[in-house]
């Protein structure tokens, strides 16, 4: 291990407490965690300023390992808790880490509304296309036709594209990366944290144990090669035909626009209410 990595581990991980971690050998979650820590380190945020909130699933275990203010919420609800924290203390950098089932099945409603509402939050969604922790059941991002423990005859539903869903729901910053393109991922996470507004990073990851094994990709290397061969940079994709993009997905920044931020708008409401309105309400007759 390089000295730089050791330094980061000592600085950010709760290394004396809860290791070894629960993730399977070769799991992409560690790569996402690494990218997140490096992005935070590069930005230079203080650990006290950061809240890392998760939902339930393999991704949900991430906060326990890092030395921030950490919160492991209920399934699909990370963004709702994050919303409360951010509103109560806007100075905190609040990052929600979720899985694909977590964010887009049980938490789908919260996800689209958080995108619409535009608090200054960062949402990182690790999309491994399966429910890993519970044993390989199909999720909203499991591809049509693939096999899962609850789709033993092949899946007949169609998958969400999470990043595109976030764009449509109004998130001002949306990016997609993979655990193969590690440097890009770190860069996207950094941009997302620095973005003023609701920022989404979808990370295509590998669950070779629960997804790959049942779909002819039973090891992490095979799955990473699949990511390498199917990911197209947004800049390149714009000049490709629909036929050429068939079966491929884009990586990079999909949306980056400016929108009024909820907490700032709310502060204006507070100031306006105090100035412009008599202290109304029935109690004040």
């Amino acid at each position: 291990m390089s000295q730089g990595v050791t330094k980061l581990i000592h600085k950010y991980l709760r290394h004396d407490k809860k290791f070894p971690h629960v993730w399977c050998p070769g799991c992409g979650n560690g790569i996402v965690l690494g990218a997140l820590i490096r992005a935070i380190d590069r930005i230079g945020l203080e650990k006290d300023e950061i809240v890392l909130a998760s939902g339930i699933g393999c991704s949900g275990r991430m906060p326990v390992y890092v030395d921030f203010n950490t919160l492991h919420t209920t399934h699909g609800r990370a963004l709702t808790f994050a919303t409360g924290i951010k509103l109560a203390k806007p100075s905190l950098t609040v990052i929600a880490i979720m899985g694909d089932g977590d964010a887009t099945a049980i938490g789908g409603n919260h996800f689209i509304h958080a995108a619409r509402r535009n608090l200054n939050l960062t949402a990182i969604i690790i999309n491994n296309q399966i429910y890993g922790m519970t044993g390989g059941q199909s999720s909203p991002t499991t591809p049509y036709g693939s096999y899962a423990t609850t789709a033993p005859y092949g899946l007949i539903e169609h998958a969400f594209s999470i990043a595109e869903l976030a764009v449509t729901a109004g998130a001002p910053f949306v990016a997609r990366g993979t655990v193969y393109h590690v440097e890009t991922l770190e860069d996207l996470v950094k941009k997302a944290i620095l973005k003023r507004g609701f920022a989404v990073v979808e990370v295509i990851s590998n669950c070779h144990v629960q997804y790959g094994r049942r779909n002819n990709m039973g090891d992490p290397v095979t799955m990473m090669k699949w990511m390498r061969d199917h990911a197209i940079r947004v800049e390149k994709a714009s000049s490709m035909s629909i036929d050429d993009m068939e079966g491929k997905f884009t990586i990079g920044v999909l949306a980056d626009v400016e929108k009024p931020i909820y907490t700032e708008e709310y502060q204006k409401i507070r100031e306006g209410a105090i100035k412009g309105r008599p202290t109304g309400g029935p109690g004040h007759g």
Partner: protein
Amino acid sequence: MSARKGQKRVLLQGNEAIVEGALAAGCRFFAGYPITPASEIAELLSMRLPLAGGTFIQMEDEIASIGAVIGASLAGVKSMTATSGPGFSLMQENLGFACMAEVPCVIVNVMRGGPSTGLPTNPSQGDVMQARWGTHGDHPVIVLSVSTVQDCFEITILAFNLSEKYRVPVIILSDAVVAHTREVFTFPHAREIQIVDRALPSMPPEWYIPYEDSPSGVPPMAPFGEGYRYHVTGLVHDVRGFPTQRPEEIKALINRLFRKITQGFHEIQKVQRFMLDDADVSVIAYGSVSRAARQAVKEARREGVRAGLLQLITLFPFPRSSVESVLKQCRGVVVPEMNVGQISREVKRVNRWECKVEKYNRVDGRLITPKQIRQLIFKLGT
């Protein structure tokens, strides 16, 4: 409150008094979702909270509402939500999170008739057992009931105080009648209002053990972002907040969660005794039904029956000793409720005496009248 000079009398409805109570208690965050007959609480707070430097947010559903409430409380702000039956059902999962992670919060349930969409605009007391046992697993929780506009103010303050002191969610059960009845309400002087805030850690961050046991069983609570970096989870956790599966750690946590409430019984279990000292027939009631019961007791007294009323303010933890003293003393007790019999079961459960416990129930969306209760008092008194 500070702007007020002397005591002020105003006409308020129950939902409005809950808002006044919440603001007086220091509530500065509300997240909610529209639902009859609770919506006025959200509407009024959307206007009042910004003026108090607080925050109101309308969320996408009740699940999100209580999630945001817990998040805000973790960041150190007193928080509340308000709903009715269907929304209360949706909140149960995160209510359990608040019990497990010991996050103070207040949940107002303005009860309507159920099950399901039920009777949105009619009163009911059908959610008593759900308030106690709605979320899964063994858990401690405090449930308070309100019967008047004055109650709505005072009990809301009590709810926040107990929630902060014991780090437990407190549920206020109101109903459509209390919520929408307008009554004269007298604001107390600010100095008469006692406010309790959660205990903050007095030790430096490196000494802070977030879920450490103590004589009170209630650990101090560090808000996020103040240098005390720790882990909060809905999983069973050790004293540091990290997930555990060790039997001795699991047992220690669950026992402490209950012990902290058990030790506080003397101040949590509130009741009002009315003409009970020499009573030989009594009514045990709560919420809007206790108003009818009070009238019935007065009328029965006028006709020579030694009747009394035990009004339960705290429904859970069930005020057993107060109920027992009535059961011991009386030959008959009536338990009228706007449900098929929820608190009456609790009363029967603790009855070890010769006292005859009679339940009386109405589930047609209408109030129980003083006359109906008076008839039962006479029946048991003769």
